[in-house]
């Protein structure tokens, strides 16, 4: 049996008989991280096809596939690749952003540790298309296991002639290295990541110049998420049309959705873009274990959505979630239980952003790291006074869109959305000092 060719009717459900998981097809299989397994399952065919097509055709293929960056911003990947200058005589770099630090996201860790060759192939394809000679996989420092698997896979690939000089007789030279981070969320920002890779403090850089013009070491550089490179592998292997046949009109392809919080089966599910929250939460994750009040749709920085029928029926794609007032982000869906105080939940996230602020610009360093976190701590400890919520809102206005990079805005996602959706909880806490939902035991005994 072969999978039916894509029909004009969009595939927006993981249950669609035409939908086949590809990025995660091998995750969890026995010895899936070895080159032998990967080759035995059609590995490096996409790369061969890329070599046969030529670099420009590869970029066209990726453009045609409609692939958009899976790291959160959703920028069209093919377009991004085409920004790299051609024949400028300078070395080009590509970097895989595996600094997966957004609370709620955990897809890349499994891709790195269970299917590293898929990423290597994707980076080879990207490197070939963008005339890069060196690639770095920037893995966050805590992912030790993933980094080790990645290193081992690179060694294997190098030994097999898949990295190095004249790869597969194509005349293409490419080296790939792992660079481990050391615990900084800001490294997920591409220019901060480049600073970190250069051995500097991971402060974001000024843009322009954009990385495609002057990135790592001042040379043309492109940074993509792990999932993006892996998707490129699949696109080159199965064709742009196959990829473009999945998902919705503007959000094409499949996406790794992660779900965490009180659900029966938390984890990673590969589903076409446009799958509804309802399908993910109920059909795949087995439904919530307790009453839920909010959904964080794509990692902690995406504004929360209210748990209601309309939200559940929202398709998970870039446009529909944006229309609902949030972002697809990394696809890390988190459910917030009804019984937890929303101020406490938000405080946890604010504390996270305060801890991760790089300290470069004033609104983030002082506003988030200094003031916002104190305001929340005060509220949560029952010391709030009426007017505190207004103060937070006014402060947010002075932070939002004023900071150097998006981290401060990311913090405002949960803050503003939680105040908008659950103002009552804030007001009760600020006025009475008592949360509407008192703290409870959460730790499981066994």
């Amino acid at each position, binding site marked *: 049996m072969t999978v039916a060719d894509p029909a004009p009717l969009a595939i927006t459900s993981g249950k669609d008989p035409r939908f086949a998981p590809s990025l995660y097809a091998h995750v969890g299989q026995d010895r899936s991280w070895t080159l032998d397994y990967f080759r035995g399952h059609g590995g490096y065919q996409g790369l061969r096809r890329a070599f046969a097509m030529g670099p420009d055709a590869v970029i066209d293929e990726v453009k045609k596939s409609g692939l958009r960056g899976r790291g959160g911003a959703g920028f069209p990947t093919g377009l991004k690749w085409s920004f790299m200058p051609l024949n400028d005589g300078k070395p080009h770099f590509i970097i895989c952003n595996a600094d997966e630090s957004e609370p*709620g996201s955990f897809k890349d860790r499994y891709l790195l540790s269970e299917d590293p060759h898929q990423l290597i192939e994707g980076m080879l394809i990207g490197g070939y298309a963008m005339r890069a000679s060196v690639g770095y996989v920037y893995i966050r420092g805590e992912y030790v296991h993933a980094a080790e698997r990645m290193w081992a896979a690179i060694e294997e690939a190098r030994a097999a002639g898949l990295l190095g000089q004249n790869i597969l007789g194509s005349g293409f030279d490419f080296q790939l290295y792992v660079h481990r*981070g050391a615990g900084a969320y800001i490294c997920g920002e591409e220019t901060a990541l480049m600073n970190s890779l250069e051995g500097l403090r991971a402060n974001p850089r000024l843009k322009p110049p954009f990385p495609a013009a002057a990135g790592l070491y001042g040379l043309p550089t492109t940074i993509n998420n792990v999932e993006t490179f892996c998707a490129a592998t699949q696109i080159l292997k199965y064709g742009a049309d196959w990829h473009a046949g999945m998902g919705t009109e503007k959000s094409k392809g499949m996406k790794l959705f992660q779900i965490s919080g*009180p659900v029966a089966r938390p984890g990673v599910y590969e589903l076409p873009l446009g799958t509804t929250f309802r399908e993910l939460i109920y059909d795949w994750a087995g439904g919530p274990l307790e009453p839920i009040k909010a959904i964080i749709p794509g990692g902690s920085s995406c504004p929360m959505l209210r748990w209601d029928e309309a939200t559940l029926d929202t398709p998970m794609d870039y446009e529909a979630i944006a229309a609902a007032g949030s972002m697809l982000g990394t696809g890390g869906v988190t459910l917030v239980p009804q019984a937890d105080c929303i101020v406490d939940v938000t405080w946890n996230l604010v504390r996270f952003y305060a801890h991760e602020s790089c300290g470069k610009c004033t609104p983030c360093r002082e506003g988030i790291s200094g003031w916002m976190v104190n305001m929340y701590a005060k509220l949560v400890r029952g010391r709030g006074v009426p007017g505190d919520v207004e103060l937070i809102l006014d402060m947010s206005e002075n932070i939002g869109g004023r900071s150097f990079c998006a981290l401060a805005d990311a913090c405002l996602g949960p803050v503003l959305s939680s105040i908008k959706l659950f103002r009552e909880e804030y007001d009760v806490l600020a006025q009475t000092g008592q949360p509407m939902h008192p703290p409870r035991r959460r730790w499981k005994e066994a």
Partner: protein
Amino acid sequence: MNYFADKQLLVADIFSRYPDSPQGRRSALMPLLREVQDAEGFVSEARMAEIAALCGTTATEVRSVMSFYSTYHTLPTGRYHLQVCSTLMCSLAGSDELWDHLVSALDVQPGDVSADGRFSVQKVECLGSCGTAPVVQINDEGYYENVTRSKCDRLIAAMRADIPPLPDNPVPVTVREDGRQMTATGERVGASIHDRGPLPMPTRPGGEA
């Protein structure tokens, strides 16, 4: 004593990953810090100066970079450095209680090392294992996931006996051997990519290989 004096090969390997330029040398800073920390548990000032000399920069810059990242330590850590994720998903799964339990059971405060030199604890932000919360990372090694109270006690006992358990790396197997995913009800739905043959090799318009 000079830490890297007898590790020329390792140092050369690290430098070989980056361009042979002053900027490229600088890139080796983080891997070298990681080497020292893995071996000694923390990075002392003497090591910072040593790394600075290797990377062609100053100790100030090394300290600056080092202090920026949260996983480098300037103070000695215990044999088992327990890092408890405290961000939302783990917090919702009870990591605050887990933390309190650890701190009282091990009798150690963050920044300190327990009297027997075994334990140090650190609250860290999201470790990227939200589906298997709560999570504890021990040393610069693997994760211990779904840490319930009883699992936590077992872990502590094992470390007290100096037989640390191997880290869990539970892989959420969402795609079955036949390449299809299974819904919560156990129903296998959708198709399998295994059944889809790869595309034929295209011929290049230009003709150059």
